[in-house]
């Protein structure tokens, strides 16, 4: 078994390489994905090895990237589109929401658009505006799209390949500030045996409070769980992985045991994913809850200046504060 230590970025790169090797219909397209290897180097070396007809440097137009990818998909290709930063996806919003998401439905199931839209998302890298956003709710709200995000190198490697192999159009959110974090990756395990793409996973078992997170916040919550354990409180941390459709089987089971739930995401709270999670948990676990479901999120403001993003982003202390508050009811 070939197990290697890889960063999330390198795991994604290796997963993309595998997808290009395994299916000649897979095409990567985006701004600067060729010689540069993308601004985060996620496509590093791929154009050199697979040519400029399979790894395509596109004109600088996001709607064009997604719109032409629709046409390529109609012709039988499986485009993997890179949007350079979260804040730049909006020019493509119509193509994603009105075209990509609806084509299968409109065709009465006769046409599929097997497209992956990769978006580095979230803050924490000290960037200027439009480079740190969390747009997941926009896409999770849209029927016809699926939305996933990874939180560790093993998932990055497997999930990107699963997303490309899926016939569903998938928005694949990459936690950009975690690109450089390392972990063990099993490179040889067959995709067919892999953990299902749209399933959540318990990443730390616990008994006292259920903490739901995804993407960049999973690590924050794991660190909070370690700190809480020192105080004698056991947090169960669930990595949601799939934001649409949500898989809450494990969450329901967990909350029925713990009686307490805290949801954590970087995106603003207002009408965000946390609200949906709180509503569903409340419906399903109403008689087990000892307190309301609490949310730890970014604030309802435009993403702030980099020098105050630490205060904007949920961190270990804010997660623990919410955990404490669940015991206040």
């Amino acid at each position, binding site marked *: 078994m070939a197990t290697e230590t890889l960063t999330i970025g390198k795991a994604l790169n290796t997963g993309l390489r595998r997808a290009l090797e395994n299916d000649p219909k897979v095409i990567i397209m985006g701004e600067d994905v060729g010689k540069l290897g993308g601004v985060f180097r996620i496509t590093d070396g791929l154009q050199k090895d697979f040519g400029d007809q399979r790894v395509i440097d596109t004109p600088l137009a996001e709607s064009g990237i997604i719109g032409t990818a629709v*046409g390529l998909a109609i012709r039988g290709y499986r485009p993997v589109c890179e949007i350079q930063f979260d804040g730049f996806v909006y020019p493509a919003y119509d193509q994603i929401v009105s075209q990509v998401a609806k084509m299968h439905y409109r065709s009465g199931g*006769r046409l599929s658009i097997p497209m992956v839209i990769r978006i580095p998302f979230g803050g924490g890298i000290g960037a200027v505006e439009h480079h740190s956003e969390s747009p997941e709710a926009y896409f999770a709200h849209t029927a016809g799209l699926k939305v996933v995000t990874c939180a560790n190198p093993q998932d990055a490697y497997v999930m990107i390949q699963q997303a490309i192999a899926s016939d569903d159009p998938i928005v694949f959110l990459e936690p950009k500030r975690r690109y450089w974090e390392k972990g063990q990756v099993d490179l040889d395990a067959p995709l067919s045996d892999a953990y299902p793409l749209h399933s959540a996973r318990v990443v730390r078992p616990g008994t006292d409070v259920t903490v739901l997170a995804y993407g960049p916040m999973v690590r924050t919550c794991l660190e909070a769980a370690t700190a809480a354990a020192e105080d004698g409180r056991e947090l169960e941390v669930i990595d949601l992985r799939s934001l649409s459709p949500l898989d809450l089987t494990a969450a329901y089971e967990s909350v029925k045991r713990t009686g307490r739930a805290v949801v954590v995401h970087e995106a603003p709270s207002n009408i965000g994913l946390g609200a949906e999670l709180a509503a569903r948990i409340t419906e399903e676990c109403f008689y087990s809850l000892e307190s309301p479901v609490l949310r730890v999120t970014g604030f309802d403001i435009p993403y702030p200046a980099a020098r105050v993003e630490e205060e904007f982003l949920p961190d270990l202390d804010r997660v623990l504060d919410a955990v404490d508050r669940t015991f206040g009811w």
Partner: protein
Amino acid sequence: MAKGDPGGTTRSRRAASRSRKGAAGDPALVQLLTPEGERIDSATGPDGTEYRVDFTDEEYRGLYRDLVLVRKLDAEATALQRQGELGLWASLLGQEAAQVGSGRALRTQDMAFPTYREHGVLYCRGIDPIMPLGLFRGVDQGGWDPNEFKFNMYTIVIGAQTLHATGYAMGITIDGKTGTDDGEAAIAYFGDGATSQGDVNEAFVWASVFNAPLVFFCQNNQYAISEPLERQTRVPLYQRAAGFGFPGVRVDGNDVLATYAVTRTALDNARLGQGPSLIEAYTYRMGAHTTSDDPTRYRIASEVEAWQAKDPIARVKAFLEKQQIADAGFFAEVDEQARRESVHLRERVLEMPDPEPVTMFDHVYPNGSPLLDEQRAKFSRYMESFEGSAH
């Protein structure tokens, strides 16, 4: 006219003695049949390309038949809307020649990306005209498999399909299906209003830099709902192509022969690997934007009358009569076929059943969704709770 591969054009840059640089009154307009039904042997485009057609009598009669049938079926759909059988209809009245000319210029292997008004192109592709009526009746989302018919689904968001066509054409190149006479090409339909859309301009950029085998076919029908062309552009639309680095030509969109010639040449150039081009089919929307529109609020009767004199069908009929290519018996037979097909269309529209409500949950995702399955099940139980009650 048989579907698929009728007639042919002659491409030549040799100046012909009987050729004309554009049409009378508009030097930029490629025209091969005047509104009075006079044939022009050849016409020269702005880049010196000479356009001509060489049809048999049978093919001329076939084009006339197409034009009449397409107009009649369109009128039937308008009537169905007026009678409450369709929710909406976007009539092509006045644009028959632009659609039949370009639609017949497509070869079997070519792919078309329509707006929501290309009923005439659809007909020329050999597709049952009932197909888009589910959308307008509201019994489905109007869908079909684009690859089965080489005709994409109607696109209602203005201009979005031009990018789809561009991507599809890039795929033709990647597949190595250009460079020979039997190569493939794509055609993107859009209107004058769409030329203001970002997507259309992005499609121009992409098609240009990737040398995509694509024809941009703009039916300039002078209005985007109520807004006249002057609200979209200060230059003739075909001239925009130059700025993007590919040829543009304006053709008399009410002249089925010229439209055929120009489109066939552009498609063949594309399939041979010479890249994209823009055709501006200069025409007029004789009817309303859709059945929900009232054009009397924004245009004057004299303008409509002036275009009435340039009718795309009358000129073909005049030509056929003058040249004794068709007789009264032929015209009567075409009218009878049109009547029969429109009655048949009407009967089938009226037979379209309303869908079962629970089918609204179908085909959201190729691989399905457990949450959606749950919602569907709840909805089914809710609906079943009414069974046997007075409601």
